[in-house]
């Protein structure tokens, strides 16, 4: 069970001359302020150092019960990754509380990490180790015996259909193979809580389907009634998989509920439309409508009619 209550996080904005650091970012790597929506100019005036702040997360709340898949849905830069990093105790929140199975993340991070499997945004493997060694290494770091970790790796490999990969070195893995290995690695200690940050990024249809099947099974009592939190920006994923959805935009939770409830709330029949309305406000949804149906572009900066 995962509860997040009104967490917030801001970072010092990079100084203008350091914009060049963009070039240094590797693929799949994100800065801490990746979820930032805007640089707060008002804050800049208030802080004595006149340091502009980037508010990556302003007010995000989430409730994920056991045996359910909770989707964390938001556009790029909504603050999903930052929220999950705070949940993994990688960064300390400025405000709010986070509990996993009733344990406070900030106060007792190791206990939280021991009972949660995180698949983070960056999911690098060790290229010179085999898939099995990659998985067993994490098992050993969780305090498992080698034999137990090895047996568990075997089970997970069966579950994710990657038995043939187990004894190959990770150096030549495809995106999907890397993803499966990283997922198995995150689940090696059979955690009660599973947190996945955009797990379908870069996966093809079949791999995505296989992942969905695995997650559905993990949700069932036979699969261990896991509490699964799943962040994504893809509507279809959420529609097909999630029992409930938390929509975040510009660092805030803007809506919570099952897909049907969100549709009803927005009065839409299409979930994508409902999401755009929730995430960007009715103005954006309607402006989008106008663009589609009118020949002339709208005047007045998309004000409501």
């Amino acid at each position, binding site marked *: 069970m995962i509860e997040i209550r009104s967490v917030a996080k801001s970072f010092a904005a990079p100084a203008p001359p350091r914009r060049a650091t963009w070039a240094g970012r590797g693929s799949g790597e994100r800065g801490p302020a990746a979820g930032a929506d805007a640089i707060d100019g008002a804050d800049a005036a208030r802080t004595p150092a006149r340091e502009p702040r980037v508010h990556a997360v302003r007010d995000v709340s989430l409730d994920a019960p056991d045996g359910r898949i909770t989707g964390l849905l938001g556009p790029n830069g909504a603050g999903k990754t930052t929220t999950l*990093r705070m949940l993994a105790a*990688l960064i300390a929140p400025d405000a709010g509380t986070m509990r996993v199975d009733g344990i406070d993340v900030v106060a007792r991070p190791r206990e939280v990490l021991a009972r949660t499997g995180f698949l*983070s945004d960056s999911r690098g493997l060790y290229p010179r180790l085999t898939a099995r060694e990659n998985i067993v290494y994490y098992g050993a770091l969780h305090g498992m015996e080698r034999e137990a970790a090895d047996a568990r790796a075997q089970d997970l490999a069966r579950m994710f259909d990657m038995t043939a990969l187990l004894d190959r070195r990770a150096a030549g893995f495809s995106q999907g193979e890397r993803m499966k290995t990283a997922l198995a690695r995150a689940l090696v200690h059979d955690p009660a809580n599973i947190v996945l940050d955009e797990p379908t990024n870069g996966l093809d249809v079949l791999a995505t389907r296989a992942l969905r099947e695995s997650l559905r099974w993990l949700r069932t009592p036979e699969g261990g009634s896991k509490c699964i939190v799943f962040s994504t920006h893809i509507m279809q994923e959420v529609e097909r998989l999630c029992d409930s959805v938390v929509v975040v935009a510009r660092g805030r939770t803007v809506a919570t509920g099952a897909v049907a409830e969100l549709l009803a709330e927005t009065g839409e029949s299409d979930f994508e439309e409902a999401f755009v309305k929730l995430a960007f406000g009715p103005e954006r949804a309607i402006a989008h409508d106008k663009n589609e149906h009118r020949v002339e572009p709208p005047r007045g900066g998309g004000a409501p009619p």
Partner: protein
Amino acid sequence: MRRSLAAVLVVLRKELSDALRDRRTLATVVVSSVLMGPLVLLAISGLVASLESRAEQREVYVAGIANAPTLRNFLERQTYIVKEAPADFEARLRRSTFSDPVVVVPADFEAALVRGDSPVVEIVSDSANQRSEASTTRIERLLGGFSRERALLSLALRGVSAQLLEPMQIEDRDLASTQTRATRITGMLPYFVMMAVLYGALNAALDTTAGERERGSLEPLLMNPAERWALVAGKWGAVACVSMLIAVLSCLSFLPGQWVLRSDTLAAMFQYGPREAALFIVILLPLAAALAAVLMAVAIRCRTFKEAQATSTVVVLAVSLLPLVNVFDLGGEAPWHLWAPALAQNTLMTRVLKGEALGAEQVVIPLTVCLALTALGVWYVARELQRAAVK
């Protein structure tokens, strides 16, 4: 605590097997660092052997020997073979294609000698041409002998005692032992060993920090319940082990190296047996540990392996340049040398080669410095690890 120690071992084991699987890098380090020393030793021995054989040859090159039969007579009485110098000897000396100094005799040598005009005889060598320079002293002494003989003969003809010419006697007494003298030549060996240690640590240190970050495996690693310091200690241990392994290999590589020494004199002077190898290893292990920690600390702030390589140049330069204080003998041995890492180890290893004993102070100070550097480096990496993971 027990759990954390277990985590240290888990990380150590993984990082070690990871580093040892990087065969290409390891091979490069072993070939370039470990084999380098013995190869240099071989080259030095070749040079010394050629110097020795030249000294034994007893040959002297003279330009214009036909002008000086007296000198020729003297040289031949000293069992030297007199050879006519090639016409273009000056150019060839400059190009280092001719390796003997040349004695130039003026045309009126014999007449001037008879008149008592002391003719000028030149010894031509090029100080940039080291091999010709090495023989110059020998030739100078030889010609000095000729002058003395002439002087003694003149004095004897006039019934003057030869002792008047030598109101005092000069005798050389060299305090250096054979081994001490040898360090003038073998003094660069510690330097090569130290480079091996440095390059042994470099790659592994960068791979476990900046490399881990670049691969995107640092963030998932920190999502394990292991303590940060345990992760860092394990990584450091692995890097230090690799570096120490290279240190040991490098130190041992000189043992067979000395069997192939071509110069008997050098082989006699170069005392490097198992005892010296063991002392070298004892001196180098703390340095390997410290370098591992320092390199990791430098690399942890870098996003990519490449960036870390550029940044670590500072450490590489420091470790390469500090021992040069010793090699070039700038101002002799000073107390502060023991406080500077790399320089201290170089000093101590040179002492071992000279066959001198190591005092307690000489062991304790560098050890303390290395331990402090190690602790500082590991602490810094542990502090920066989390920040590095999310940046």
